[in-house]
């Protein structure tokens, strides 16, 4: 059985493919997959899913390994081995609000896609907040008066700037990470180790 690797679709997938290519692997099947969600190469079987679903496939052992953002792992806390960071997909988690915003005296309302991380952050700071879950375009929330601020990932900061928001506080750094199913990592050690070692070769832990 070829190792099964779950990849996060979208930007992370492109960055992984480039990285994978730089390690000397043939990535043609990955770049020419069209809309297929499952691709087999000579050595591996790849499946493509959204970040949170990558963690689910790995946790349940459908995939042996997964490539997923650290933000997703912090938010969903799947029961998997979270082996090491990869040299792409860097981002930061930040609290942001409208430029010149004066925080209210009473309990704040925070909008975020990352409700778990938001809850954890304000709890660690000893502050009670109300959290509103949004699925995307979180930057709208403070502008339209839905929330006092947002918690979201920031890569370049351009989206925030264009929407009149500024970072109030940055509190977590993330990158893409390699995760593994808890039992498959051990049972299929011989099959998985060459791939893991190869990915590790550039990481510099």
């Amino acid at each position, binding site marked *: 059985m070829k190792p099964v690797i779950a990849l996060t679709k979208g930007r992370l997938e492109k960055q992984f493919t480039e990285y994978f290519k730089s390690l000397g692997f043939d990535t043609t099947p990955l770049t020419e997959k069209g809309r297929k969600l499952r691709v087999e190469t000579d050595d591996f079987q790849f499946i493509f899913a959204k970040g949170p679903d990558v963690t689910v496939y790995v946790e349940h*052992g459908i995939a042996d390994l997964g490539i997923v953002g650290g933000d997703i792992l912090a938010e969903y806390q799947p029961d*998997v*081995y*979270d*082996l*090491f*960071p990869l040299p792409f997909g860097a981002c930061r988690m930040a609290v942001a609000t409208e430029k010149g915003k004066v925080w209210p005296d009473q309990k704040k309302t925070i909008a975020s896609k990352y409700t778990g991380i938001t809850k954890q952050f304000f709890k660690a700071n000893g502050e009670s907040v109300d959290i509103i879950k949004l699925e995307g375009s979180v930057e709208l929330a403070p502008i339209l008066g839905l929330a006092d601020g947002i918690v979201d990932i920031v890569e370049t900061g351009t989206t925030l700037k264009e929407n009149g928001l500024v970072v109030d506080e940055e509190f977590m750094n993330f990158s893409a990470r390699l995760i*593994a*199913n808890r*039992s*498959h*990592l*051990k*049972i299929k*050690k011989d099959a998985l180790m060459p791939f893991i070692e190869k990915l590790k070769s550039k990481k510099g*832990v």
Partner: protein
Amino acid sequence: MFLPAGSQDQIGEKLDRQAKVIQSFRTVVKDRGFKAIETPVVEYAQTFNNSHVGMKLSHMLKWFDRDGEIEVLRPDWTTAIARAIMNQHPKQLKWFYQGSIFRQDKNGFESRQAGIEIVRADPYLGEIESLFTAVDVLSAWKIDNYLIELGHTAIFDYFIQELGVTDDTKKLLRTALHDKKQDDVYRLVDQTNKPSIAKELVELTEAYGDKTILDEYKQKWGNRPELIEVINHLQSLIDNLEALGYKNIIIDLGRVKQLPYYSGVMFRGYLTSTGETCFSGGRYDQLYDQFGDDKIRAIGLAFDVDVLANHIKDDQTKNKVCLVCTPKTHVKAEKMRKDFPDSVVDITYEQPNEEDYTKVITVRDEVNQ
């Protein structure tokens, strides 16, 4: 009518297989001298979340009783049995149990377990007996594609003592090792006054595999007698299992305990076909510290009945005979059952679908013929 998320009905073959798993288990352990014990389903939360046990209240199914005490559905067998057998005659050393535990942190509240506890026995005897019982029970279930993994709590404890870190860092480091999160392990140790250990602990996240790991680490840890003792101990358990004929053993020297009461060897069984954990257990002498000064040695393991029920083979299907009768001939039909000792015998009043049965017999009232 609906069921709460996580609850489910159990039907037909699945129940038969669970019953078969439990039946074979009971036969094997009773023949090895284990005595049955069952604790109630409802207990006080305090039994499980006091500092000696350390289970999380948030993971338990709980409510308040009329005096305001928190009661829970049994979240763990080992802890409940420890409480119960403190009132039993200390001469009985080997106990077995079977039944459900209830937790909120897993998919589905209820999971079925069957397991053993060995209390006050010679520690080495307890460990060998636990492992041999696991092999014996799995063989009774005709399951042979599994791996036994061995680990030991003393390895992490040794490095923690070397590092002299705070309890908070210790907790974070344990989590990082549990997740084999190499960058976190490195960062946490690098901040201490012994950063030289960082590389060693990162390596420990990869110290799993077949028994050659033990030889490798025996060399590496040559000048650390405490760790060599652990290696020799694990090696001797492997030697015993191999001498018995069981050879599929893996080691994880980087494994850390998940409950505070584990203290010593830890073991786990994996089904190689799916990677599911079919049993887990280990030594937990510290669990008994809560009952007084006497040092009590204890060890045990629990089988996951739900997982195993999916893997044991069904019994050979029996012939199905249908006796078609009337209210008048029903007694005659009932008496005819004994003519088909190895078959499933169904009695109906209406002509059945012939394809559903090996044989269909119409029972006639001879007096009226």
